[in-house]
């Protein structure tokens, strides 16, 4: 998918702006923003590692008599259709959701990297071939790709993750290839050639490291997007399997009760949006540091 590509353009622009930034022409996001984003990510990490610390209830404890309770002191985010505490489920679901986001991004990135490296370094013929392949995958609707993977390997968080990863790979591949091509034809790589450095040395010491910084930033941005994707699969009933709480699945389940219990979708939705925004904000901060004055 290519939200990523858009993001990439954004990063590139950001990077291109680095000098302007230092001159203060471009307003930075308030530092407070970065700080809040950081705090949110810390919360997410704690929720992933030690969900028990943050939970107020057993996330899977059903209580049909307490179903559809609106947010209160006892249930901060309210309860769902089975009377489970949504706040605790949101916390419990952090790990799964992030895992889906991170792993899917990782898969997409790894595949993209392989394709991108092949295209970027494999010579004209390979580049042409890989490019066509990526084009084909690109023209292939992402959702269909995901659906196919799921239908072949059965639904569940693992396949959803793989599916999302696979469908994001072409986007990554294009960006990565673009990065490589740009770096390969950059002046500093030319300068290294003039110095008589060998190809592998140039790749290892210039091209890869320089390509990896933006790619890493890109990856932080891809995580939120992957979660949203997995959520779409959950809507089609093909994501995480019950009772495991996962934001996308909660969102999809709560949609049915939108008019009865808004809190069932709003809070998981906020988590997704919050994750996307905070990783993006941090990623951008990182991009500025990586290419800026450091």
């Amino acid at each position: 998918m290519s939200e990523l590509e858009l993001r990439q353009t954004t990063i590139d622009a950001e990077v291109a702006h680095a000098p302007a930034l230092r001159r203060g022409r471009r307003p930075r996001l308030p530092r407070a923003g970065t700080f809040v984003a950081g705090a949110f990510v810390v919360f997410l990490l704690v929720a992933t590692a030690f969900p028990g610390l943050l939970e107020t209830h057993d996330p899977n404890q059903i209580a049909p008599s307490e179903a559809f309770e609106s947010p209160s002191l006892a249930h901060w985010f309210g309860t769902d259709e089975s009377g489970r505490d949504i706040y605790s489920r949101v916390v419990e679901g952090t790990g799964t959701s992030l895992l889906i986001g991170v792993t899917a991004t990782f898969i997409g990135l790894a595949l993209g990297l392989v394709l991108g490296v092949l295209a970027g370094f494999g010579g004209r013929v390979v580049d042409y071939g890989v490019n066509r392949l990526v084009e084909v995958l690109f023209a292939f609707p992402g959702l269909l790709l995901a659906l196919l993977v799921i239908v072949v390997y059965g639904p569940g968080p693992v396949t959803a993750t793989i599916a999302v990863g696979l469908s994001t790979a072409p986007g990554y591949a294009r960006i990565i290839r673009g990065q490589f091509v740009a770096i390969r034809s950059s002046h500093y790589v030319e300068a290294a050639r003039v110095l008589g450095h060998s190809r592998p040395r140039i790749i290892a010491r210039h091209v890869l490291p320089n390509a990896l910084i933006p790619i890493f930033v890109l990856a932080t941005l891809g995580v939120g997007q992957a979660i949203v994707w997995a959520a779409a699969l959950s809507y089609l009933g093909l994501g995480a399997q019950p009772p495991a709480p996962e934001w996308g699945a909660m969102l999809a389940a709560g949609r049915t009760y939108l008019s009865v219990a808004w809190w069932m979708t709003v809070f998981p939705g906020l988590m997704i949006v919050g994750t996307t925004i905070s990783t993006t904000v941090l990623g951008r901060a990182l991009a500025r540091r990586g290419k800026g004055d450091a």
Partner: protein
Amino acid sequence: GCQAAEPEASGDPVEGGTLVYASGDAEPTCLDPHVGGNYPQALISAQFLESLVSRDATGEIIPWLAESWEPSDDRLAWEFTLREGIEFTDGTPLDAEAVKVNVEHLKDPATQSSTGYLALGKVEAVEVVSDTVARFVLSAPDSALLESLAQPWTAIQSPAGIARGMDANCQAPIGTGPFIVDEWVKQDHVTLVRNDDYASAPADAANTGPAYLEGIEWRFVPDSSTRYAALQGGQVDVIDNPQPDTIAAAQGDDAFTWLDAPRPGASNRIELNSGQAPFDDERVREAFIRAVEVNDGIESLFFGTAQRSYSPLSSREPLAYSDASLFETDLEAANALLDEAGWTARDSDGTRMKDGARLTLRFPVSTNQSIPAEQSLFEQVQATAKQAGFDVVISLLDLSSWYGALAVNEYEIVSAPYTKVGPDVLRILYHSDSIIPAPSGYFANLSQLDDPEVDALLTEAASTSDPAERAALYEQAQQLILGGYYLLPLYDQQNSFLLSADVKGARAMPTVSTPSFLDAWLIG
């Protein structure tokens, strides 16, 4: 709104107007219910096709296209006398020859009929006795014949229509019904127009002439929230498959009428696969049924729109037998049973173990067949069963994958609806013959109940001629099925309609609960 629409609601019927119906069921791939034969086809074809007989609200078979019928003494031949002067909407007369063509059509492999084909399993041939008398020749006595013929899947179509070939007939089957298929815009709607010459109302209809409505726009709106929103916004007049919370909301609103029409045949139930471990052990089955708690869930998830069932049959079936005592939740008893059955060890997350195997129950759930509330109920089943040490693994699957999982026996519990008129559905669901998969891998006996006694009772009930004896036989069979803890009944197959208060006189057919708009009119 009130609980059910009264046929003779307020005022006199008003002529005219087009009713917009929004269906949440899948769009049929063929409008001819002979081909394949599923509920969505029944739903729409009931508007333009009619059957030989119908059933009234008490479960009694009543005349429709056939005004009378008589079995032979050996019950191997039935003579149906057709109503006179009825024509299909293409002008072809409804005669014995037409009935014969329809039965042959159903039995022709090229038609690819499934439901209708099964229903007429014992019908060998139809003989034309006279223009109005058709004789059904059976291979064995069939007490369910009339019930089978009451279903929309065995409806009678114009022989001329059938002769057009499958492609054309799928597009616009020709029947005797109150409406005629005018146009089918795929994925959008089917336009039905009034049959002005209609004269074949079933015996229980209030209106015997043509419908009051000028036509019906039959739309396909897959998303339930959208359907309800459209009803609220007045874009549609009737919706089917409303979500329970929606029904609850609509009940408090005078603008809507709720038409509750559970389907006949089987109840919605969780089947326990007795064909393999661990449910080949009756104690484990009982333990599961004792362990899970569903009443609270049904109440909260269905907002009071669904009644707990304790029977394998729908409450619409007069012969349904219930026994609530078998399904009382008792965690202690469940634990004791499991201990007794040897599932004594427990692993780290509390799941019981025996000989190194975990007490895992695979539960494939079809997202197409189970509404969200039902899926949530299954999650609650999962949670309560866990307390007794069952590890229920739910997988949400699309329909094809779901059938796939069943075909390879990868399930311990499963919930599958089955709609049929009459108690003979028990034979389809619990006779050991139904364990043998069809070439497609599908088999109906999902609990894999294999009990010669049950088989004998069901076979006998299917051929007996005495109603009392038939009832007794079915009751015995149901006792055995329930008593063996092969299934956990939940509620009737939910089937209901929300109608705008402007729609009057609509009803659900007592056969398979499809809506009928013959008597309906729009006010305002």
